[in-house]
């Protein structure tokens, strides 16, 4: 199969667009996710549009004890992997901050689950001295805000994890790329008030698929979020804590 890419959490709009952008470049694709009604539909669509080999299978980010066997089966089925895109995430809502039973789920999905499957991916790529890992984190992980700090904390932890992983895999020549999208027009954000400069999933997917060809380690998408976050990071805490963000 042609340079297969594993997409973890393949049913979101960003993941679907990213898979499409890789398929358009001729990569074989493996779609992993929980929704077994949606996966075959997305897989069929990629095959019809791009004429590439597409497989899919059930994957649960929170079921960390299944991850090793899952990755092994994917590698066997695809006869190796050339890259992994970690695209799953779970926003939860503000209740997550007050009710830790929901907060725990947000952390499990966005961080623990991610760290678990990525550790197996890293162990696979490291001896190959080839390949890439793209982790989709969030600008929400840069600074804690009252509106979604549990999600932000989990994504912030993921960003740190990816940073460390990049450091570890650098000598092996394995790329680790952190993607930090701003507002993207997805089911997660649809109808939310107060959004601005909302990007289309297609644009984000195209940028993500281009990332392995480029040199950046951390990618804000679209690019201007780097500067928006620069400003937000420089607001002094005594002021920041008074803001309603």
């Amino acid at each position, binding site marked *: 199969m042609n340079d297969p890419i594993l997409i973890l959490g393949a049913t979101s709009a960003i993941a679907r667009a990213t898979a499409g952008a890789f398929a358009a470049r001729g990569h074989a694709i493996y779609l992993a996710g929980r929704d077994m009604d949606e996966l075959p*539909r997305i897989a069929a669509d990629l095959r019809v549009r791009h004429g590439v080999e597409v497989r899919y299978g059930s994957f649960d980010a929170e079921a960390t004890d299944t991850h090793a066997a899952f990755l092994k089966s994917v590698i066997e089925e695809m006869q190796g992997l050339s890259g992994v895109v970690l695209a799953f995430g779970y926003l939860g809502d503000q209740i997550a901050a007050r009710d830790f039973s929901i907060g725990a789920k947000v952390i499990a999905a966005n961080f623990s689950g991610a760290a678990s499957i990525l550790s197996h991916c890293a162990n696979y790529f490291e001896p190959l001295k080839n390949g890439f890992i793209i982790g989709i984190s969030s600008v929400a992980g840069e600074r804690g805000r009252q509106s979604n700090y549990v999600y932000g904390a989990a994504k912030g932890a993921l960003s740190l994890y990816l940073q460390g992983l990049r450091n570890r895999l650098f000598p092996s020549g394995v790329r680790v790329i952190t993607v930090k999208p701003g507002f993207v027009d*997805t089911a997660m954000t*649809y*109808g939310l008030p107060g959004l601005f400069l909302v990007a289309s999933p297609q644009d984000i997917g195209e940028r993500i698929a281009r990332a392995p060809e480029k040199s950046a380690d951390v990618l804000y998408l679209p690019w201007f979020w780097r500067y928006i976050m620069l400003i937000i990071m420089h607001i002094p805490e005594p002021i920041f804590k008074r803001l309603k963000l």
Partner: protein
Amino acid sequence: MGTLITPLSGWGRYPVQSCELERPERYADLRANTDSVIARGQGRSYGDAALNENDRVLLTERVNRMLDFDIEQGILRAEAGTTLAEILPVIVPKGWFLPVTPGTKFVSLGGCVAADVHGKNHHHDGSFGDHVLALEMILADGSRVSCSATKRPELFWATVGGMGLTGIIGEVTLKLVPVTSAYMKVQNRAAENLEQLFNLLQDPEQDDRYTVAWIDCLASGANLGRGVAMFGHHADADHLPPSLGNPLVAKPGRSKNLPFDFPGWVLNAKSIGAFNDFYFKREGGKQRPFLSGYDAYFYPLDGIGQWNRMYGKRGFVQYQCVIPDASAYEGIKALLEELSASKRSSFLAVLKRLGAQGSGMLSFPLAGYTLALDLPVRDEGLFGLLDKLDEIVLRHGGRVYLAKDARLSAASFRAMYPRYDEFMIVKKSVDPENRFGSSMSRRLEIGGGRHE
């Protein structure tokens, strides 16, 4: 799942109404979640067919997966949100084409079925629904059922042309037509008046698979109905110059967006008249047959994104009607005379021949001639004119196309669509609580009048 309350309109940008939008990304989320809902694909119907004032509009644009393409048989199965623009680059390089296409490719499969759209080949190939092998519907009770011309045919033919009022169209299976090239062979012929134009379109010697005529609406008197008839068919790969390269890949054109609303004064009798003179001379002057990529041939306006902004902020109404063969010439002539007398100018006027009426209970086409006019909304006087046009259409036994309509009366609708009662029997059986409704269905009192 989030919803978005926002002002919404059709392609004509009239009327504008506040609707509650929901945009599912999963097939399982295509459901009637409220008392009143209408599915909306690309919003390319012109009036209020895909609006639901103060109620739910279900956007299908993200449920657009192509599920199966049988390259041997030319059969495509796709989710209803898939657009023709997405389908064409997949099928044309494999030697297949859409059996029927409207004048824009930025329409969804579901919309094509719900409006039972027609193309320039209606007199040979019928309308869109004639080529649909099967539909999967999501009904009011949430059940998924498949239907076709042989399986639950009453549901199928109520849905084809049924403006989304029988349920949500989930999947469409379409039979494609084979082609050997991505090019069209086109022949234009000028006509100095309406009679000549009709003679051209009727002449079996001139006829081709695709025919359409453009009319200069500002010409009057002896030149009333002057225009250019355009004849075309899919070019045979063997007859293409080798310089074109792969015959199944047409060289792409560039596209531009209309970046702002034209002020109202830009389109007036003088500017339209100047354009029409130019266009008549340029297109009518093409004496020899020429080759055109399918995109430029079928979708000339798609090259200018958001061309609807040309008509200014208040939008426009497209008036499209069909008059049966027996009275077509008199009827179209009366319509053009009424328009000419009103001193309102239509920038775009298109005359097409339609073939036999299909099986869709609320489908538009019937054997005759169809006239389409774009009329900017500048003042309320326009609606008086359109009511007069309705009277002419009714007097000649014709009907108005619902996919374009924004203002027809319920009484005129009943008189134009005699199979309404039959449609309602099916609608009541699958949607007893009338959950599928739109601003159009309430205006036309389909399934009852205004709801609270």
